[in-house]
C-alpha cells in the first residue's frame, strides 16, 4: 500500500481546510455568514472529496494488502520518547474512514437544509468539519498519541456542538457534562499510554502489535482495562454512559453524526485495533462482555419509558453500543465492526428521520405562535405526535425501514450484524468462563426483543394512530394542516441511508448460510477484509446450532414487533405505558428514573467534591495556610513591639538601663 498512502494526508487536510475557511471568514466578515449555500458547499465538499479519495484507496486495496504508514513530521521528541504525526492505512482504518466520510458527507448535506434558518450556520459547519478532521485523525492515526489527539478532538467538537445553542444553560450543561465524563475515561487512556510506552518503548500501533509478546498477562489485562475505561467514556457504556442521553441537546444532525454514527464507536474501533492484546486476557474479555451486555439491557429498559423521541434513540444507541462491546468481549471483533457499520447506516437514518419530524413539529409550533403566543409544546415529545405518516411520507417510509433494520429482521442490515454478535456470544460459551457467556447470550436475546419492541413503540407513536396535538393543546385545532414534509435535500439523504440500511448487511453474510447449500462458502466479505487486522475467536459452532440461533434471533425480533403492534399499533401510547408500568411496578419506575445514575454521581461525587473544596479547602487555604504565614509575621511584629519599649528616647530610661548593666557586669566579674 506504500504507493497509495501518500493520499491519506489529503483525506485529513480537506476537512481542516473547510473548518478554517468557514471559521475564519465567518468570524471576520459578517456578510459571509449569510452566504449559506457557499458555506454549505464548502463544508460538504470538504467531507465528500475525502470520501472519494478513501473510496479510491479502498478499491486499490485488498484483504491481503500490507499496512502502510506515512509520517508527516515529528510531533514530540524528548529523551527516549518520540512520536510522529503519522497516519496508518490498513483495512480497518480505511473501513472507518469510509463510514466517517460517507455518512458524514450525507449528514452535512442534510444539515444544509436542517440548519438553514439558524444564525450560527457558518459556525455549525465549521465545527462539523473540525469534527470530521478530528475523527479522521482518530481512525487513521499511526500511534496511540495521535489517536488520542483525535479522541479528545472529537470530544471537543462534541462539546461545542452539544452546546451549540449556548444561550440555553441546560444545553451548555449537557455539553460540559459530556466533556467531563469523557475526561474521566481519557484519564485512564492516558495512563494506558504510559504503561504501553513503559513496556514496549513505543506508541506506534505496529510496534505495539509486533511486541505484544512483551506484555505479561497481567500487563495486558491492565492496559486493556484502562483503554476499556477510556472506551466506556467515549462510547457511553456503564458506568460513564450518562452523558450521551443529555448530549441530545445539540442539533439533531449532530446527534446523528457524532452521537450515533461515528464518535461513539471510537471505543469499539480502538479495542479492535488492539485485539491481540485483548485476546491475551480472558478475564478482561469477560469484563468487556459483561459491561457490554449489561449496558445493552439497562439502556434498552430505559428506552422503553421515554417520550422524547431523541431520548429513545439515544438510549437505543447506548444499547446498540453495548451489543458491540459484547461482541468485542466474545472475541468477535469483526462482528463488532460490522455492527459499527450497519448501525451507522440505520441509526443515522433514524436520527435524521427524527430530525425531519422535529423540523415539522417545530414548524407547527412556530406557526401557531404567530396566531396564539401562548401555545407551547415540546416538539420532540411523541405524546403530541401520532398519525404523521400521512403528512411526512418519505420520512415515515425511511424511518420504518431503519426501524426494521435495527429490530433485526432479515435481510436488512441490522439483522446480519446483530445475529453475528449473538452467535459469537453463544460461541464464547464453549471457552473459558463459558457459563457466564451463556447468561450474557440470554441477556442479549432479551435485549434484542426489547429493541424491536421499543423501536416499534416509537415508530407507531410518531407515525401511526391519529395526530394528537389538536386534542392536547388548546388553540392547535387545525395544526395538522401545518405539517409538511422536509425539503428534498433532507429526504434524499434519508432515502440514501434507508437504502444502505437495507443492503448494508450483505457485506457480512455468514458463511454457513451459503455453505449449507453448497458445502463450503467464502461469502463474508467483511471477515475476509479484516482478516489481517483483527485477531478473532474461532467459530466452533456447527451449522445446525447456527441455524437454530439465527431462527431464534429472528423469532425474538418478530415477537418484539408483534407485541409492540398489539399494544401501540393504533392506540394512545400513554395509556398503554401506564399498563406496562402497572405490570412491572417498582422495576418500571427504576427504568423511568434511569436507574438513578445521574443522582448517584451528582450526589455521591460532584456535589461532595465541590462542597468539600468550598467549605473545607478554600477555608483551609485562607485560615490555615495563609493564617500560619500571618501568624509568623505577627509573631515577629510582637517582638518588634517589645523591642520598641527599649527605644523610648528618654535619657532617664537609658541611664537606668546602663546602671543595671554595670551592676550586672560587676556582679559577674567580682562575685563569681
Amino acid at each position, binding site marked *: 500500500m506504500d504507493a497509495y498512502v501518500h493520499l491519506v494526508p489529503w483525506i485529513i487536510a480537506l476537512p481542516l481546510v473547510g473548518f478554517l475557511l468557514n471559521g475564519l471568514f465567518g468570524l471576520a466578515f459578517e456578510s459571509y455568514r449569510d452566504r449559506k449555500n457557499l458555506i454549505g458547499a464548502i463544508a460538504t465538499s470538504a467531507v465528500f472529496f475525502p470520501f472519494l479519495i478513501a473510496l479510491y484507496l479502498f478499491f486499490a486495496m485488498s484483504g491481503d494488502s500490507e499496512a502502510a504508514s506515512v509520517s508527516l513530521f515529528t510531533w514530540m521528541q524528548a529523551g527516549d520518547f518520540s512520536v510522529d504525526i503519522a497516519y496508518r492505512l490498513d483495512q480497518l482504518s480505511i473501513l472507518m474512514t469510509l463510514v466517517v466520510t460517507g455518512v458524514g458527507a450525507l449528514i452535512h448535506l442534510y444539515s444544509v437544509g436542517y440548519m438553514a434558518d439558524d444564525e450560527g450556520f457558518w459556525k455549525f459547519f465549521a465545527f462539523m468539519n473540525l469534527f470530521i478532521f478530528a475523527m479522521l485523525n482518530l481512525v487513521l492515526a499511526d500511534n496511540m*498519541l495521535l489517536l488520542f489527539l483525535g479522541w479528545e478532538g472529537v470530544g471537543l467538537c462534541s462539546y461545542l456542538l452539544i452546546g451549540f445553542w*449556548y444561550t440555553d444553560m441546560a444545553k451548555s450543561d449537557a455539553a460540559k457534562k459530556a466533556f*467531563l465524563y469523557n475526561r474521566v475515561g481519557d484519564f485512564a487512556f492516558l495512563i494506558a499510554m*504510559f504503561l504501553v510506552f513503559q513496556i514496549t518503548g513505543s506508541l506506534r500501533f505496529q510496534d505495539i502489535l509486533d511486541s505484544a509478546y512483551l506484555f505479561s498477562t497481567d500487563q495486558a489485562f491492565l492496559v486493556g482495562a484502562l483503554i476499556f475505561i477510556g472506551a466506556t467514556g467515549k462510547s457511553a457504556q456503564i458506568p460513564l454512559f450518562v452523558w450521551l442521553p443529555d448530549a441530545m441537546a445539540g442539533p439533531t444532525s449532530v446527534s446523528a453524526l457524532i452521537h450515533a454514527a461515528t464518535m461513539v464507536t471510537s471505543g469499539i474501533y480502538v479495542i479492535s485495533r488492539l485485539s491481540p492484546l485483548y485476546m491475551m486476557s480472558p478475564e478482561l474479555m469477560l469484563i468487556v462482555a459483561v459491561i457490554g451486555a449489561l449496558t445493552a439491557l439497562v439502556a434498552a429498559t430505559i428506552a422503553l419509558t421515554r417520550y422524547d423521541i431523541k431520548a429513545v434513540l439515544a438510549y437505543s444507541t447506548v444499547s446498540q453500543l453495548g451489543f458491540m462491546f459484547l461482541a468485542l468481549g466474545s472475541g468477535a471483533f469483526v462482528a463488532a465492526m460490522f455492527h459499527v457499520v450497519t448501525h451507522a447506516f440505520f441509526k443515522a437514518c433514524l436520527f435524521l428521520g427524527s430530525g425531519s419530524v422535529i423540523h415539522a413539529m417545530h414548524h407547527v409550533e412556530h406557526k401557531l405562535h404567530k396566531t396564539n403566543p401562548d401555545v407551547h409544546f415540546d416538539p420532540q415529545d411523541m405524546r403530541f405526535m401520532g398519525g404523521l405518516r400521512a403528512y411526512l411520507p418519505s420520512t415515515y417510509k425511511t424511518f420504518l425501514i431503519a426501524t426494521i433494520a435495527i429490530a433485526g429482521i432479515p435481510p436488512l442490515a441490522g439483522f446480519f450484524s446483530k445475529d453475528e454478535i449473538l452467535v459469537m456470544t453463544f460461541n464464547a460459551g464453549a471457552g473459558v468462563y463459558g457459563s457466564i457467556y451463556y447468561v450474557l447470550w440470554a441477556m442479549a436475546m432479551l435485549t434484542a426483543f426489547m429493541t424491536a419492541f421499543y423501536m416499534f413503540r416509537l415508530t407507531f407513536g410518531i407515525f401511526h394512530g391519529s395526530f394528537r396535538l389538536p386534542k392536547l393543546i388548546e388553540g392547535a385545532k387545525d395544526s395538522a394542516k401545518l405539517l409538511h414534509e422536509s425539503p428534498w435535500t433532507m429526504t434524499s439523504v434519508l432515502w440514501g441511508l434507508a437504502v444502505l440500511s437495507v443492503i448494508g448487511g450483505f457485506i457480512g453474510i455468514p458463511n454457513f448460510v451459503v455453505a449449507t447449500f453448497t458445502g463450503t462458502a467464502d461469502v463474508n466479505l467483511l471477515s475476509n477484509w479484516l482478516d489481517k487486522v483483527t485477531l478473532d475467536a474461532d467459530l466452533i459452532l456447527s451449522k445446525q446450532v447456527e441455524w437454530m440461533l439465527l431462527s431464534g434471533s429472528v423469532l425474538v425480533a418478530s415477537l418484539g414487533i408483534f407485541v409492540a403492534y398489539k399494544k401501540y399499533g393504533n392506540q394512545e401510547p400513554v395509556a398503554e405505558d401506564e399498563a406496562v408500568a402497572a405490570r412491572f411496578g417498582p422495576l418500571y419506575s427504576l427504568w423511568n428514573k434511569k436507574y438513578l445514575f445521574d443522582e448517584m454521581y451528582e450526589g455521591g461525587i460532584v456535589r461532595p467534591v465541590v462542597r468539600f473544596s468550598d467549605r473545607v*479547602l478554600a477555608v483551609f487555604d485562607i485560615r490555615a495556610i495563609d493564617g500560619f504565614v500571618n501568624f509568623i509575621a505577627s509573631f515577629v511584629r510582637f517582638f518588634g513591639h517589645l523591642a520598641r519599649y527599649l527605644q523610648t528616647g528618654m535619657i532617664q530610661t537609658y541611664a537606668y538601663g546602663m546602671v543595671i548593666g554595670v551592676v550586672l557586669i560587676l556582679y559577674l566579674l567580682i562575685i563569681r
Partner: protein
Amino acid sequence: MELLLNFVIYLPIVGALFLFFIKSEEAIRWFSLVVTLGVFILSLPLLFAFDLSLTGTPQYMSVTEPFLSDWDVKYIVGLDGISLLLFMLTTFMAPIVILSSWKSITRHVAGFYGMLLVLQTGSLGVFASLDLFMFYIFFELTQIPMFFLIGIWGGKDRIYATVKFFVYTLVGWLLMLVALIYVGYAAGNMVNDGVFTTDWKLLTDPAFQLGLVEQTWLFLAFGFAFCIKIPIFPFHSWLPLAHTEAPTAGSVVLAAIALKMGTYAVLRYLIPLFPNSAIAFAPMFAVLGVIGIIYGALVAMVQKDVKKLIAYSSISHLGFVVLGMFAFTTTAAQGAIIQMVNHGLSTGALFIIIGMLYERRHTRMISDFGGIAKMMPVFTVMFMLATLASIGLPGLNGFVGEFLILLGSFNSEVLGSVWYTVFAASGVILAAGYMLWMFQRVMFGPLKHEENKKLKDLNAREIGLLVPLMVFIIWIGIRPTDFTKYSEAEVTNLLQVTQERAKTISEDAFVQDLPDWTKRLYQIPDDFLTQDHPDHSECDE
C-alpha cells in the same frame, strides 16, 4: 553576539531612563512599545545563531573581572539550552504586556512603564546570569518594580498584597543569601584556590563536592526560597492575593516570567549544586507538586473571582513543572521546561483576557457575567483557545508539557513509583472541571445583566496582542520540537552530570562518619565499613 546579549539585557533599563524626559502619555506608551519590540527583534538572532550541538558550555558568554574586592564575583552572562527559551519568552512577552495596559493605566504613566522596563532587564538578567551572586542581584532587581507595580497600580487591597508578596519572598531569599555565601566560600576552598566564588561554571565543576550534611542544610535553604517563589504548596498563599490585586500587566509578568524564576533556579542551581539532596528529596518535592496540582485545582473550582481562579490554576500548573523537574528523566525535565513556557503563554493570555473584561465592566466576579459569547464573538474564540490550552487539549501547547512530564515521571527511577503520575494525571479531569465551569458561567447562558448588553468586541489592538500568543499556543501544540530542540541536549547533559556527581559524593560518604539521619536520608548502609565492598576496596588500594 556577546555584545548583542548585553545590549538586549540593558536596553529596557536604559529606555526606562529616557521615559522621564517624555511628557506626553501617548508618547511614553509608544516609546515603551518600540523599546520592547526592539528588544524582541534584537533577541531573535540569539535564538537563530544558537548552536544546538554544544552542551555544558553556555553561549554568547561575557565575563568581567571580579568587582568585589577579595571575592571572586564576576559579571557573567550567557545563554544555554536551559535558559534560552525562558529568555526568549521574556523578550516576547514584553511588548504584549505593554500593549495590554495601553488604556487601563492613566496614573503615573511614566512610572508604570519605567517599572515594566526595569523589570524586564531584571528578568533577562536572572535568566542570563551565570554567576549565583549576579543571579541574586538581578532577582532583587525584579522584586522592587514588582512591589511598586502591585502597590501603586493595584486593586483595593494592593498594599497588603504587595507587602505580603515582597516580605514573604524576601524572607526566603535572605535565608538563601546566607546559604549562598556559605556555598561561595566552600566552592572557593575546593575549586578556586581559597577565594570566594559563585561562578556557575566552578559551582558545577565535578571537583566541587559538598558533603552530605552541608548539602542537606544548604539544599533546604535554597529550596525554601525557590518553593516560595514558584510557589509550591504550602508556600503559595501570597500568590492568589498578589495576582488578584496586581494590574493586568503585573499579573501577566508575574505569571509568565516571575514565577518561572523559581522553577528555572531549581534546574539551574538547586539540582546541580546539591545533587544528592535533590535526589533524596525528589519524592518529597514530587508529592508537594502533586498536592499542588490537585489542591490548586480544587480551590480554583470554587473561586468566585475569575482572576483568583486563574491564580489558583497557576499553582496547579506549576505543580506539574515541579513534578517534571524532580522526576530526573530527560522526558519529564523537557516537559517541565516547555510547560514553563506554556504556562507563561496560556496563563498570560488568560490574565490579559480577564483584564479586557475588567476594563469593560470593572468587575471580575463570575456572577456578574453570563452570555458574553453573544456580544463578543472574537473574544470568545480567544478565550476558548486559551482555556483549552490551559485544560491541556491535545494539539495545543498545554498538552505537550503535561504529557511529557507525566510520561517522564511515570518511568522515573528516582521517584520509583507510578502513583505520582497517576494522581497528577487526575488533575486533567479537575482542570477541565474548573475551567469549563467558569467558562460556561461567564460566556454561556442568557444575558442576565443589562450592563453586559453593551459590551463591545475586541478592537484591533486587543486582537493584535492576543494573536501572537494564540499562534504560539497552537505552534507549540503541533510542532513542539521546534522549541524543545533547544533544551534537549542541555537537559540530558544536566541530568547525567548531576546523577554522576551524586554517585561520586555518596560513594565518598561511605567512609565518613555521618549522623544517623543522613545515612537514612541518603540510604547509606550503617554497616558499610564492615562489608566487603568491591568498588571501594579498589579505591583504597
